[in-house]
């Protein structure tokens, strides 16, 4: 087991190095140098020269890269051009919002998708099965932002059941020790704030969770259909175990293996979708922050944001792979 974990950890190193090179080259490929975006187009040549010296742009490229890598490893991504705040601090504030949103979306997808896929497999070839296939097909075909707009229109604008924008009502004053608003509300025992935060999460989470929901449903259905005909399931049924026990202990438990792997693959989709969903709901997470940064040509933010999100994505996949090896002994020993 330890050997597998070490091998998997070592695999991350070249990816992170490659990623840092990619982002380093990318910043230099951007239209206009970072200096001119920092100083504006009318900066005097003398000032530009001064800044070039100060930020080390006169040194050889490999030295610049090593220097950059050092500051990145300290989580130092520079300061935002638009807000003059440290990119690191903004990430600290915005990451919890996106984390809450993606986790809520994932919970929604799994809580609905697994039972839906399971019953579709049980009713294989029947109307319920076809209906679930059709819904999951629509789920992967509908753009996240379009679904978000529709949900917002129906439940927020028309019915007025849920709020249209933001993470929490502006009138609610509450402390945010962790910036994870759900957690904060629980820690401080502010149930009114908790209810409000959850209400703000519902629509974005449902919109963002639509694609994972479709995929989880399909995979669960396929996995259950696969497992159902295994010898051990037939044995369990033949020895007279109640059908529900067989489903729970033998069918579902084994079918959950493939489902657990695809959750890691969903992380990329969720992080991509978060940019769009957060834009529709003006949700103050990493996604809407990056979107604004693109408009302001705020390169330190785009650079720091993309690096951070990619790092997150690599780490999520690492954790999923390792935990998969823990649940599935076949991987460990191969």
């Amino acid at each position: 087991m330890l050997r597998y974990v070490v091998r998997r950890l070592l695999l991350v190193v070249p990816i992170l190095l490659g990623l840092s090179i990619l982002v380093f080259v990318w910043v230099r490929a951007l239209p206009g140098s970072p200096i001119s975006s920092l100083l504006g187009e009318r900066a005097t040549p003398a000032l530009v020269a001064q800044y070039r010296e100060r930020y080390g742009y006169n040194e050889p490229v490999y030295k610049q890269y090593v220097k950059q890598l050092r500051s990145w490893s300290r989580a130092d991504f520079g300061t935002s051009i638009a807000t003059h705040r440290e990119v690191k601090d903004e990430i600290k504030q915005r990451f919890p919002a996106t984390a809450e949103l993606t986790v809520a979306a994932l919970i929604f997808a799994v809580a609905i998708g697994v039972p839906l896929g399971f019953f579709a497999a049980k009713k294989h070839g029947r109307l319920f099965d076809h209906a679930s296939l059709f819904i999951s097909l629509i789920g992967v075909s509908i753009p996240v932002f379009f679904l978000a707009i529709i949900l917002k229109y129906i439940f927020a604008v028309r019915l007025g059941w849920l709020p249209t924008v933001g993470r929490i009502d502006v009138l609610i004053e509450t402390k945010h020790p962790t910036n994870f608003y759900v957690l904060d509300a629980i820690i401080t025992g502010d149930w009114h704030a908790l209810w409000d935060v959850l209400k703000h999460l519902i629509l974005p989470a449902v919109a963002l969770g639509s694609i994972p929901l479709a995929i989880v449903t399909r995979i669960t259905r396929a996995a259950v259909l696969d497992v159902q005909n295994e010898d051990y399931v037939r044995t369990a049924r033949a020895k007279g175990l109640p059908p529900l026990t067989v489903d729970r202990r033998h069918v579902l438990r084994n079918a959950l293996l493939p489902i657990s792997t695809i959750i890691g693959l969903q992380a990329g989709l969720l992080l991509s979708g978060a940019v769009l969903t957060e834009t529709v709901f003006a949700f103050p997470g990493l996604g809407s922050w990056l979107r604004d940064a693109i408009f302001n040509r705020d390169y330190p933010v785009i650079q720091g944001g993309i690096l951070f999100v990619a790092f997150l994505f690599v780490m999520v996949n690492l954790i999923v792979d390792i935990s998969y090896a823990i649940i599935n002994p076949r991987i460990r020993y191969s």
Partner: protein
Amino acid sequence: MSVAELESAEIVLEAPSGLWREARHRLVRNPGAIVGAVLVSVFVVTAIFAAQIAPDKPNEQNLSLLQNGQAVGPSSAHWLGIDTLGRDEFSRIVYGARFSLLVGIVAVAIGLSIGMLLGSIAGYAGGLLDSVIMRAMDVMLSIPQLLLAIGIVAALGPGLGKIMVAIGIVNIPIFARLLRGSVLAQKENDFVLAARAIGVRRRGILFAHIIPNSISPVIVQGTLAMATAIIDVAGLGFLGLGPQDPATPEWGTMLTNANDYLVSTPFLAIVPGVAIVLSVLGFNLIGDGLREALDPKLRGRH
């Protein structure tokens, strides 16, 4: 060609023709695939004959059609209503099909050709070249798709052409991985050994024997990539990275504008959204149908 070469060529030719004939049989019996084909045909025909189908020019403004300065819902004269600037929504949707189709085809073509090339080289050459290419692909895959596309567009600058390139690049590692896997599997086949034994050059084997036999998963992925490309284009357009002329009837850009007028004119958001869903659904249905039809495990079953 020597007799041996002719024979080996024959072996190769025989396999795909059987596969394709069977696949076609299975495809026409799959109702989902037929619905998909109909949707995609409508989409393609609309895109090609947009000028003949649309009653108006997409940017023709007729402010007198507005009621109290507001957009007007569907009517018999204007099937999908009038947008906030007095333009016929139906005509704009019809012209919008052109952009989605064009971007989809170009983006997938870029991703597919470069990805196939890299993947087949990696798979066939092996060794250091394989490691270098595939690690580079891993790095690209370590950035979530849309973010990678956003990063590329940020470097290239916004615009329709840049979006095509960006989404194309995003697709490269997907096709490269797919083809590498396929090539590795094909490499050990007897017909490849036979070709090598009679002295066919490496490049010849790759292009004449291995790639044609690895192509079916690529076709499936290509169809599904068209679907994702249409969604991604609309997504980038929605974020404001699409065509910089706001009058361009691109579906994603149209949705951005509609989002601002959601309360007064919801149909302006629904119409382009439904257009996206239907075209994406079409490609997904065909892709799924093809996957089932080309799956060698299902061969011989009807």
